[in-house]
């Protein structure tokens, strides 16, 4: 355990930025909080919750995955070292969730995996909910992590208490930016964690909704009536830390052809439309049902873990009030 003074954070990031790309939450025009390349003066406390999830660091909105030039096919993958500072535990849990799909089992995504290998993550635990829409406790997560990070920072007021979660974290913590922990920091850490848990608003209903969906989910009419409001913008999907569906297309470039993938959204009709024209999810309601059943029912059945980490970004992003919070409330009636 170590300490990092708040006024030393920028110096530490500046130093790291010399050897790798450092990303940190930056408030843009005091409105959107985005993960941006570290620049002098751009980083500000408090860290907050970014408008978009951190998934774009590993799975960019748009990336070229294969290049065809004459007889030559190349699959270039990222090799840049990246350090992300200041993402929240919910984002880290989102990354763990997508790791399972992208890096393990029968399918290994080379682009995601290459970025993941080169990624260092410094999580800042939430000592209080960064926004109104947070519901991580209810989503059976916590406002801090027990494992699965490189470094985790706990806000102790005058500075951060720093806990390592990997050998990379241990190495980082050995650098001169970090100071020895204070006497009593172990007890203090427990106190912060407890306060942090207590400060989280609970929106009871998540587990009830999961049970309801597992048992005998609401019927078609329920989803269709909710979906009347949906304007098919896809915002909930794009901001979600665990949504990783993508579309692939080929385009001609100056030197040949490039295969590109972009984020996609299961709410769009074309996502499930078959070549014949038949669409197994033909209505907004059926697509809305699929999206939420996937996260709250099938992920729980398959992985014993919901595909929703309780970050609340979909509720923030939805222009018509159809985020996870509202859906869960509606399922519970």
């Amino acid at each position, binding site marked *: 355990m170590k300490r990092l003074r708040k006024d030393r954070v920028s110096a530490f990031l500046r130093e790291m930025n010399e050897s790798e790309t450092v990303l940190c939450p930056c408030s843009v025009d005091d409105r959107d909080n985005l993960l941006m390349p570290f620049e002098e003066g751009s980083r500000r406390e408090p860290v907050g919750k970014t408008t978009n999830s951190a998934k774009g660091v590993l799975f960019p909105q748009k990336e070229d995955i294969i290049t065809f030039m004459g007889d030559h096919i190349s699959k270039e993958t990222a090799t840049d070292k990246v350090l992300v500072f200041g993402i929240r535990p919910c984002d880290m849990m989102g990354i763990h969730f997508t790791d399972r799909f992208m890096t393990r089992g029968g399918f290994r995504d080379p682009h995601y995996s290459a970025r993941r290998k080169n990624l260092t993550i410094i999580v800042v635990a939430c000592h209080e909910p960064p926004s109104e829409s947070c519901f991580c406790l209810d989503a059976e997560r916590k406002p801090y992590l027990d494992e699965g990070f490189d470094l985790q920072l706990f806000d102790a007021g005058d500075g951060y208490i720093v806990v390592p979660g990997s050998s990379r974290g241990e190495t980082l913590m050995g650098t001169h930016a970090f100071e020895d922990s204070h006497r009593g920091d172990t007890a203090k850490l427990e106190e912060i964690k407890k306060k942090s848990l207590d400060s989280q608003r609970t929106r009871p209903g998540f587990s009830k909704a999961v049970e309801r969906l597992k048992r005998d989910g609401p019927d078609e009419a329920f989803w269709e009536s909710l979906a009347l409001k949906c*304007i098919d913008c896809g915002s909930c999907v794009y901001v979600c830390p665990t949504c990783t569906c993508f579309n692939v297309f080929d385009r001609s470039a100056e030197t040949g052809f490039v295969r590109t993938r972009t984020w996609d959204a299961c709410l*769009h009709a074309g996502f499930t439309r078959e070549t014949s024209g038949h669409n197994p999810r033909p209505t907004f309601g059926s697509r809305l049902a699929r999206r939420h059943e996937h996260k709250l029912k099938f992920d729980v059945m398959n992985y014993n873990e919901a595909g929703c980490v309780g970050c609340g970004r979909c509720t923030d992003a939805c222009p018509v009030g159809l985020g996870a919070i509202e859906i869960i409330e509606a399922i519970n009636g």
Partner: protein
Amino acid sequence: MTNSIAEFEDAEAFLVIGSNTTEQHPLIASKIISAVAKKGAQLIVADPREIPLAKMAAIHLRHKVGTDVALLNGLMHIILKEGLEARTYIRERTENFEEMRSIVSDYPPEKVRELTGVDSGDLEKAARIYAGHEKAMLVYAMGITQHITGTDNVKSCANLAMLTGHVGYGSTGVNPLRGQNNVQGACDMGALPNVFSGYQSVSDPAIREKFQAAWHVQGMDESPGLTVTEMLEGAEAGKIKALYVLGENPVVSDPNAKHAARALKQLDFLVVQDIFMTETARLANVILPASGFAEKTGTFTNTERRVQLSREAMAPLEGTKPDWEIICELSGRCGYPMDYDSPMGILDEINQLTPSYGGITHERIKDTWGLSWPCPDKDHPGTPFLHRGRFARGLGRFEPKEFIPPAELPDEEYPFVLTTGRIRFHYHTGTMTRRIPLLEREAPTAVLEMNPADARRLRLKNGNMVAVESRRGELRMPVAVTTVVPEGVVFSTFHYGENNINELTIGAVDPVSKIPEYKNCAVSIRRL
């Protein structure tokens, strides 16, 4: 719009007529949806098609295509009959009421039902909802304007709003939703045949003198120029020799499109300025490559008259220039130098010459969400809604109109009404959106929406190919069998240059605004 977007949230009732809001103005639609779903606002949708908003509506008035004046007169008739009009407001703030009363007295529900097909009970309910709420917003778009009676339709909307006192207050008003991010700005800046910027008339000698002095020129023409439809007519007749087209694709977007292409080919000289190769640019003698929105700095004026600064996010692609630089350079080479150092220099001039933009300076909009005109001076806070206290012209004048049927009605030879519109995945002629694979996947081809009853009669199933023919051309496309369209009406979109529905639409125009009747023409359909 007389009112502003934020006011939608507090409205108690909406009349949405001729606007498929969720498709074309989804963020404004989201505010309507929230007001209805969360706050219990009453929604009336008037549209021949069962648009998505209709599913949330208290009442859906499914009037026949092109019968808007009859429908609106019918609503006013009921409002007057039931004494729901805003008497004090009419007395104090309007004029020509008696003529109005006399014309709409001739539109009783039974007659309106005959003309529009709308049930009298529904019409009465809608009239009571709209007149009965203090904060009622009337919202329209191209379904009102793209008719030979477009101007009459707009005036009838204004009549209804004034009759019920729904102009000049928050969350009320007559709210045309503009179709492009800057179409309001283009009109504001005088990209119209009869006005300078800020709607200052070219026929007013004092206004001409002001601009002549500012621009150091003499003898500016006092007569209005031509509208787009008149320019193409002129080209075909050989009266127009050269045309300079900026950011428009008339080969696809003009009605009776084959005729438009023929007209352009008659020109001696065609210049097209655009960011992509369009169907129109292919006909050009000279193409001037322009920069895209993210490659330039300037202002956009949106549907609520809000002027916002947009900054260059990336350098222009090599070989392209922002539109203003191209125009300035062209002007210089034609012998009139325009020496603006930047878009801000142009805004300075706008501030000086355009009273409604007088206080919308670079300084005031550079770090804000912008300002809504009129904003005459640097201390003015901008104007979220118009006509507060009094109308801009003094008294609001009722302009009653009689119903006139569309130019081309269905007959034995062409038994279907074809109405055209848009879908959310593509923008206009698809110049930009059809280059985006995900959008193209969602909506790759033109389809013809047809009611199941008609499909049965023609022995058609979803996806069957048909030939659609009007007096002007023939196209082939698959049918989409759906109850969204009523019997006897088919619908398609104009986003697809390779299968361009505007080859079928009619060139008939509104006599005042010259807008074509894209919303109504007669077609026949046969199975292939």
